[in-house]
């Protein structure tokens, strides 16, 4: 790792202030950032550690029924505390491994927007709102391709608001080495329609499969997907699978998610 200073603010205001320094970077749970720092892939002058900021942790239900999760909430805490949205709790319970879940946070995961991460699929499929210290960003506007988001420099995710669906399921097919999603599909059924978000598969990062959404909105059954063809073009092709394989898995995982969501 390159040398850097480390700040450990205890209030959001102090964290924002610290992030104003030159080449400062926020450190969530660090489960992705620290390995990148070890590879010397990043060289921040200052890391602002958010794990001490209590006000961005926790889970609450908003007046409109949305499940609101603080940006600094760990995966383990979401797994244990998001019972109001079981598919989301199940997703969190299956990210990485137990030790990673005890450190990694939802805000950190979303800000990083790894193309194989699980949370982006949940946020996009739920039409969630990403709340930062400066604004609210709709899920459809948040993700901006692999490792890129709408976040500005110094902006911190303080909360993510998930409208709770009538039924939902996340199905992950793991990449054999990293155990990240080779393909993960989150299906959420709302009164207004079904949303399907896919992670792991596309070179463009998490995306909505709109044809599947339309089909499932008319009939929320696996068979509704019959005849839909997702192209392998633009899908990630690597050691662990071709674009065509990933496209196929999207179909399989979507069907399984629909079946599991009931």
């Amino acid at each position, binding site marked *: 790792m390159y040398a850097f200073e480390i700040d450990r603010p205890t209030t959001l205001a102090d964290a924002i202030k610290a992030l104003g320094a030159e080449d400062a970077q926020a450190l969530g749970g660090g489960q992705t950032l620290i390995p990148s720092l070890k590879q*010397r892939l990043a060289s921040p002058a200052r890391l602002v550690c958010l794990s001490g900021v209590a006000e961005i942790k926790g889970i609450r239900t908003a007046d409109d029924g949305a499940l609101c999760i603080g940006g600094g909430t760990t995966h383990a805490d979401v797994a244990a505390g998001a019972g109001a949205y079981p598919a989301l709790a199940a997703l969190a319970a299956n990210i990485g491994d137990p030790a990673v879940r005890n450190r990694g946070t939802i805000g950190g995961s979303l800000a990083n927007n790894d193309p194989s991460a699980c949370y982006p699929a949940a946020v996009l499929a739920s039409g969630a709102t990403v709340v930062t210290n400066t604004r609210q960003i709709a899920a459809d506007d948040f993700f901006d391709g692999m490792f890129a988001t709408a976040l500005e420099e110094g902006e911190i995710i303080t909360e993510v608001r998930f409208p709770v669906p009538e039924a939902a399921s996340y199905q992950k097919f793991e990449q054999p*080495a990293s155990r990240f999603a*080779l393909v993960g599909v989150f299906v959420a059924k709302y009164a207004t329609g079904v949303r399907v978000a896919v992670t792991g598969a596309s070179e463009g990062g998490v995306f909505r499969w709109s044809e599947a959404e339309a089909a499932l909105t008319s009939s929320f059954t696996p068979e509704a997907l019959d005849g839909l063809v997702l192209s392998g073009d633009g899908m990630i092709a690597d050691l662990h*699978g071709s674009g065509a394989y990933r496209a196929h*898995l999207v179909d399989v995982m979507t069907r399984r998610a629909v079946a599991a969501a009931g």
Partner: protein
Amino acid sequence: MPKDGGIGASTRRREDVRFLTGNGHYTDDINLRGQAYVHFLRSDVAHGRLRSVDTSAAEAMPGVLRIFTGKDFEAVGGVPCGWQVTDRFGQPMQEPKHPVLAHGKVRHVGDPIAAVVAETREQARDAAEAIELDIEELPAVVDMKAALKDGAPKVHDELTSNLCYDWGFVEENKSAVDEAFAKAAHVTTLELVNNRLIANPMEPRVAVGDYNRSTGDSTLYTTSQNPHVIRLLMGAFVLGIPEHKLRVVAPDVGGGFGSKIFHYAEEAFCTFAAKALNRPVKWTSSRSEAFMSDAHGRDHVTKIELALDKDNNFTAIRTETYANMGAYLSTFAPSVPTWLHGTLMAGNYKTPHIYVNVKAVFTNTVPVDAYRGAGRPEATYQLERVIDKAAHELGVDPIALRRQNFITEFPYATPVAVEYDTGDYHATMDKLEEIADLKGFAARRKESEARGRLRGLGINCYIEACGIAPSNLVGQLGARAGLYESATVRVNATGGLVVMTGSHSHGQGHETSFAQVISEMIGIDADMVEIVHGDTANTPMGMGTYGSRSLAVGGSAMVRATEKIINKAKKIAAHLMEAAEGDIELKDGRFSVAGTDKSVAWGDVTLAAYVPHNYPLADLEPGLEETAFYDPANFTYPAGAYACEVEVDPDTGRVTIERFAAADDFGNVVNPMIVSGQVHGGIGQGIGQALLEACAYDENGQLLTGSYMDYAMPRAADVPFYRVDHSCQTPCTHNPLGVKGCGEAGAIGSPPAVVNAVIDALQSGGHDIAHIDMPLSPSRVWQAMQG
């Protein structure tokens, strides 16, 4: 009733207490006063000419003590190879130089170019980034067959080609083999890849060099399976330090699996730099660095043909293998595809004619050498896969086809130059059928199919040559070392013993099982026996641990030394009891005179040896310490039969291991608990090879699997509980313990069982698939199902 001590008891391991409490003492736990740290700047191109290495800016960085480059090592030797193979035409293999730090050219991603020694690890790395390299990138060769084409870029300019050797075995058999194929009623042909693997012991390599300017002695602490071999290779061939001025210590070592046999440049560097700087120098490999600097394993591309007569008897086997050596010859690399592979091509079967051809090839990749099983998994995999394919083609039961061709009479001289002393392959197959519950398979398949899964059963046999190895034989085969083992048994005055063994434990539990043997021989509590290993300063010259040799060879040396001790102790006892030496019996730690009630305790005799007041000094030296070197008369031949049941998810191609059973014949067993554990671990690695693991390069020689993010290691959820059995025992006939060795069996026997099972599952689902290359990852299986 199970025994509670001695040979055959599942004694709980004494070493566990320190490991479980965090008190293990691994090389990275060693920190010497004044220690500096080295960071190696490694090539990020696979092949290139080093135009210049400018260290001037880096030298001015904070904390830098000195930066070394290839020029600093011009006056010393290169990293040597310990085995010379002679080719089909009687010529020695092509053997390139292997400099400690790259000189002139870089030949693989990870080839060390410069070494920065600094006050801290991070300072060394910071400075390494400031070294300015000018490398003219050259086209790389990665594919072995491409590397052998005319005009292919040469890894080593001074060699005539990228061919290390073209080996035929047994060359004189070739025409008889060809004739048998011409007459065959059926020929089954299979082309396959034995995937490139990375051993990945959980402890990365570490080296700490130290120099004592008072005595002029050098000490190297290193993560090694064989400290004496490192001392010999590094002292004699690299640095020119006589062995009496060089000590190599391998303390607790966190797994090896072959990758810590070899002498590595980093070890030589730390020893050299410690003297040059007059400070201890430490290197700790990161895992990412290990992926490009630890020797890799396997990487064979093979075509095997099996000839059968009209009654399905095997009549001949012919193979052609390309074996990747990587960019340089690692310590034992040339022996793996030849003497550890060709000699095992008969397997468990009485095939009269066999010919093996191996072309070893240099490529711009990390050197390839022994990995758990070394050569024997490659032989077993191709043979057991081609037999399954033949059974399918002929429409016969794969178990029946194997049984029909089993060797049943021993000793058996194979057409590939080895003689199996004992074995009973029907017995292990019978045992397998029982413990794997093969009768219940049909019902289990039905149940799987009801859930939409394909279920397959894979069976195979294996044999291996262990207890490596008779020195005179391996000398004829090109080994540049003997492969005996040594032990010194030192009995103390109060009766306790210290055994100093040349074997090295890095997980195998020698401290427990070796003590059990002594306890059995003398009849004393195992707690009175201390096993010392891993330090050239206090153990006799030994060849270390690999090739399932510790108990068969090292244990035998210990037995021989202990027999000398007992013989001398009997003389002392005879004197004490005024009896004839021939009448003395040793039982339960007491010497008695046969037919009388006279006896003396073990401790009385040991005390007399060191306090020789009443002692036959005219005839016998005082003291009780003996050394033995044991050179085995033959290899040992563990063998067995394995069964795997898998489910395949036809929607995704994902394979899950549902059941796994192993019936092994290891001869006599000293500690059944440890033996089972060794088999479990081998099976875990074999499942890893079959389903998960692959080291991959792109066509430019860039390592695609540079970390655990892309190299798939088996996790707990990837494997089931295994059923293992080693009750079929045909003791080895030529070592005093009758043991055969158990460390590699699991890794040798399991890959074909897994692959046979997956192919069986797919065929049961109507897929016309004859073979899929390992690892059978979901995407590969799915792709195969697409036709």
